[in-house]
């Protein structure tokens, strides 16, 4: 067993000239990095932290765009023994004020010591860090003043295996307050178990467009290949989303064998890439395209396969994975040894009896895509009310136990304590087990997943609540699955005393704009309704599920 800095240094000593990373940017030559390049770049950052008085165990927030500096800064923190946390960069639509508020709420909980960012973003960051724990705003452009330090001087080498290596956050005010703290040991245990689960070999080449502030991108699409010494080809999610064919061009050029995608990306690639863009592209090297991080749909796999089989995509490459940051990454993996199992279950039993009873495959039944078997170090059970363990095909909350679980929600002992029950982590996801394989049917927590991003409805509702014309506290936000997109649409319903339809439309537009600019998502529909429309619980809270049902019923009747 080892710590992250030791593994990086050992890899570099063993094969300094090995090509380990390729970074792609539009209209630019691919940037190739060897182990030595990676170490040199990271080393300069480690020294930069050191000369700025950053101590091991200090938390460092990294606010950099996807690219070589983000990678160097991350590894620099690791070499120095500091705890990196990658924060998404400001996007084209986010309002700077909202971004600043999010950063500030993160800082208040996490109490970081430093932030690394660009010179032209320094003023913005400083506004958020005034009178907080942050002692240093480190500017990427000033890094030339630092130089690489000899190997033995890295303070990160003193880190214990059970020390915290990094923090991961999901987005939004709620998500930012839950920094998942992961130890070196947890990360290495996960990688050891997961590489076995996917039969990783030295020949595997990983292609990723995933962001590094998300567990799938950070672990599968970055840390694992660096630590297992597999070639990794990376591109920015912002470049990929504007030209999704880039993923396949990279597979073709570098003979990629593995890639991880959220479910929506299957639909997105299938519908947005033109035939002429695919000319000459060979996908036959891909041995696993792994669906992960949002509900996985059989239809999405079908669309993807039909579209790309003519370009050499092997049907057996379709794979699935159930993962969460709290277990570092994977809980289970399917589709590697055998094709992904399909389980046809009775729709009525699923809805009314919380049972997954086998059914004849037809339009009446629900086709469930297996998330595979638990990886070797992780145990999974299904629990019902009062924590009682349920048997096969009973639907309940998924609980996990492993040697790679989070150490804590950083600085949040309250959240940490409530997340565990007798050492088992309660995931908040609902599902069942059949023949040793895991199936995810829904969520216990009110959580919307859009394009793989976890969105807390209360954050969206709070934004809508601040809009003039919306009756305070009378707002609900929820997700509705969109088959065409392969992910959820966000719907917002707000009560208003305004009855004039034109004025109502104006309020709806303001709500839409406020949410778009103050969150990571774009809202699909905003409905302004009369007072008393929304259903409340007996305790007076807005009932999200009941209002979602009401909305769907009205949609069926053509009145939503």
């Amino acid at each position, binding site marked *: 067993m080892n710590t992250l800095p030791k593994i990086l240094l050992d890899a570099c000593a063993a094969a300094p000239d090995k090509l380990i990373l390729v970074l792609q940017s539009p209209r630019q030559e691919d940037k190739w990095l060897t182990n030595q390049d990676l170490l040199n770049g990271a080393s300069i950052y480690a020294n930069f932290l050191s000369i700025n008085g950053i101590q091991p165990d200090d938390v460092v927030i990294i606010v950099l765009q996807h690219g070589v500096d983000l990678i160097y800064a991350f590894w620099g923190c690791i070499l120095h023994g500091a705890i990196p946390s990658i924060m998404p960069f400001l996007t084209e639509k986010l309002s700077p004020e909202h971004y600043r508020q999010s950063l500030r709420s993160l800082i208040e909980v996490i109490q970081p010591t430093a932030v690394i960012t660009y010179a032209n973003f320094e003023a913005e960051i400083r506004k958020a860090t005034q009178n907080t724990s942050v002692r240093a705003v480190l500017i990427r452009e000033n890094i030339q003043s630092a130089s690489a330090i000899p190997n033995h001087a890295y303070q990160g080498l003193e880190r214990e295996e059970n020390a915290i290596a990094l923090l991961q956050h999901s987005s939004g005010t709620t998500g930012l307050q839950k920094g998942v703290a992961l130890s070196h040991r947890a990360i290495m245990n996960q990688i050891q178990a997961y590489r076995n689960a996917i039969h990783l070999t030295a020949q595997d080449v990983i292609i990723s467009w995933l962001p590094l502030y998300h567990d799938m991108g950070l672990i599968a699409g970055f840390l694992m290949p660096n630590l297992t010494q597999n070639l990794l080809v990376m591109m920015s999610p912002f470049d990929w989303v504007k030209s999704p064919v880039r993923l396949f061009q990279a597979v073709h050029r570098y003979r990629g064998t593995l890639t991880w995608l959220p479910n929506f990306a299957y639909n997105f690639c299938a519908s947005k890439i033109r035939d002429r863009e695919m000319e000459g592209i060979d996908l036959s090297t891909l041995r696993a395209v792994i669906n992960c991080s949002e509900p996985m749909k059989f239809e999405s796999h079908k669309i993807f396969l039909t579209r790309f089989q003519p370009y050499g995509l092997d049907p057996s490459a379709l794979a699935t994975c159930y993962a969460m940051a709290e277990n570092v990454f994977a809980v289970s993996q399917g589709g590697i040894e055998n094709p992904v199992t399909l389980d046809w279950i009775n729709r009525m039993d699923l809805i009314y009896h919380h049972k997954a009873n086998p059914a004849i495959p037809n339009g009446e039944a629900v086709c469930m895509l297996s998330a595979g078997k638990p990886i070797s170090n992780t145990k999974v059970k299904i629990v019902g009310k009062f924590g009682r363990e349920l048997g096969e095909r009973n639907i309940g909350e998924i609980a996990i136990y492993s040697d790679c679980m989070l150490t804590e929600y950083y600085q949040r002992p309250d959240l940490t304590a409530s997340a565990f029950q007798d050492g088992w982590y309660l995931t908040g996801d609902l599902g069942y087990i059949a023949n040793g394989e895991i199936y995810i049917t829904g969520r216990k927590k009110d959580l919307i997943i859009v394009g793989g991003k976890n969105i807390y409805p209360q954050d969206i509702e709070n934004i809508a609540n601040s809009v003039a014309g919306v009756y305070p506290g009378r707002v609900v936000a929820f997700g509705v699955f969109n088959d065409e997109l392969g992910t959820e649409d966000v719907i917002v319903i707000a009560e208003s005393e305004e009855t004039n339809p034109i004025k109502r439309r104006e309020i709806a537009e303001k709500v839409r*704009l406020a949410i778009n600019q103050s969150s990571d998502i774009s809202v699909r529909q905003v409905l302004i309704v009369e007072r008393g429309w929304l259903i409340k619980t007996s305790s007076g809270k807005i009932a999200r599920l009941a209002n979602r049902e009401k909305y769907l019923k009205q949609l069926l009747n053509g009145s939503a």
Partner: protein
Amino acid sequence: MEEILTDLAHYITHQILKTPDKILRNDEPLISSGIIDSFHLIDLALYIEDRFGVKIEDTELNRQTFDNLNQLGELIWSKTTNR
């Protein structure tokens, strides 16, 4: 030019926003407002290619190149006339 803008406004309100009753102003921000989110930028590019026969490069899909209908119309116009 006016025809191009009307056509684009119709596409955006009907196909992207799915709110046909929305009136989109020619100077209304599209990208910086999140009206067209990152997942739909490519739809807009594909539509323009099919409808007007000009290609908007993926590197042009940002608010620096266009952020409202007027600017988008000018981009399409300049590409049509420079062909």
